[in-house]
């Protein structure tokens, strides 16, 4: 087994329905991807009810059991249900063995509803994977912008936040979190624009850039291609591909 610093860890993977597709597992093995950080957003409802996110987390827990060592679960919640979300995060980390918190579009990142969950994540020493985009075509009602992620990060400098998709419009996303050392960006998503990884590494430092795919929606080889093609040093590439995520995960339990 590779040392944790040489691993390839995909920090942003979703299910296809209730399953990880066998083709994805096979492709990950072929590409040398050692770990998949998996979250389920259930039926992709923007404002899931507690029973929805509990069921989604049960699906991920089942995959952790089926693929031990490969699948690392991220606990998905809706901050709009504070009591149930807090209980589910506790169950996810303490009982299901999950390693991170996933927040999507049920509440914007700087909504006070999010704060208790981030405080809980800080206590557990787990990273918060926060979806972010600022779309010219219009955001979803509670979809976080990079600026809102930055505001959350400034409020909780001890939180380890991963801003997904480099914030979508990556030049703006990188600029928005430049002054927030506790925010890393993940490279996930369907945007393959040449230079995005290099610019993130140049402006944020390699320590704050983390490989992610957004599979099953994005083809894992294409997503990995962004990082493999980027003109960064071998040491920086190792950090991006897995070293940084390994460091974040080691804060709680090691790999």
């Amino acid at each position, binding site marked *: 087994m590779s040392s944790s610093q040489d691993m390839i860890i995909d920090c942003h993977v979703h299910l296809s329905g209730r399953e990880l597709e066998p083709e994805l597992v096979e*492709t990950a093995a072929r590409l040398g991807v050692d770990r998949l950080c998996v979250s389920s957003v259930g039926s992709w409802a923007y404002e899931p009810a507690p029973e929805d996110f509990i069921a989604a987390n049960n699906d991920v827990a089942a995959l952790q059991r089926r693929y031990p060592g490969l699948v690392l679960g991220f606990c998905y919640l809706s901050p709009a249900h504070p009591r149930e979300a807090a209980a589910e995060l506790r169950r996810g980390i303490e009982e299901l063995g999950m390693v991170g918190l996933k927040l999507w579009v049920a509440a914007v990142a700087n909504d006070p509803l999010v704060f208790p969950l981030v405080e809980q994540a800080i206590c557990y020493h787990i990273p918060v994977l926060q979806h972010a985009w600022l779309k010219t*075509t219009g955001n979803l009602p509670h979809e976080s912008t990079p600026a809102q992620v930055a505001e959350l990060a400034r409020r909780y400098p001890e939180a380890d936040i991963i801003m997904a998709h480099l914030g979508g419009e990556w030049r703006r996303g990188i600029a928005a979190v430049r002054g927030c050392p506790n925010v890393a960006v993940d490279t996930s998503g369907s945007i393959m624009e040449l230079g995005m990884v290099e610019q993130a590494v140049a402006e944020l430092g390699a320590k704050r850039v983390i490989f992610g795919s957004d599979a099953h929606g994005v083809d894992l080889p294409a997503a990995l*291609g962004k990082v493999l093609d980027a003109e960064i040093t071998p040491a920086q590439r190792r950090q991006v591909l897995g070293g940084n995520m390994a460091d974040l995960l080691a804060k709680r339990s090691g790999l």
Partner: protein
Amino acid sequence: MTWDACTLVGPWPFARLRYESAADLLRLLERAGIARALVSPLAGAFQQDPGPANQELAAQVACHRDRLLLAAACNPAWPGWQRDLRQAQEDLGAVGLRLFPSYHGYQLGQAEVAALAALAADCDLPVFITVRLQDERLHPPAFLVSAVPWEEVAALAQAHPGTRFVMSMGRFAELIPALRQTAGTGNLYADIAGVQGPTRCLDRLVAEVGADRLLFGTELLFQYAAAATLKVEHSGLSPRDRQALCMGNLQRLLRLPA
């Protein structure tokens, strides 16, 4: 061997691109193991009269015709486009035409486009229809450009069965219905430069529409080449389908020897 059906060079008006020149493109193609590429001027999308951009790019690629083939930007809404088209073929050596309908502000159902399709057939030039250059979500707020609907592309191809068309930078969900709808005429191809998912997207595409009208494409210098090359490398395509996708189909489309 791999040929790339979709590359563009030149400046992007809204942000500094990491690379902009034909020399950069040649280096990145070499690094990606791509032997040959069809290239168009990015400025051709933003200048209503794309003639000067074509001339500038033709001068850059003149010494590299074994590697770079010109797909001249063409705007059928610009007066005199017929003369420009012929000059692009005869004087600049263009082997294809690239349209930017949303950027030049016309729809594919307009009479000018029908005239262009007819002339392209006379000149034996394939027509590349740029469905989008960039994900619409990333467009500058004051310059949101809609994607060309796949229905318009398919309808154009069906209306002109003697012309070869390529749907360029379409997404997975757009390619499948467009290629299905034109199965009868068989004159619509599509590049894979805009297809980034889902898992094993190329296998799924081939299962749905076959491999014979799919073209390898990167959208260099706008996108990472490895996003496309790894998609192919880690697909489950048969050697026959892989060869067709990576080179054979484009070679046939351009009527070029290997």
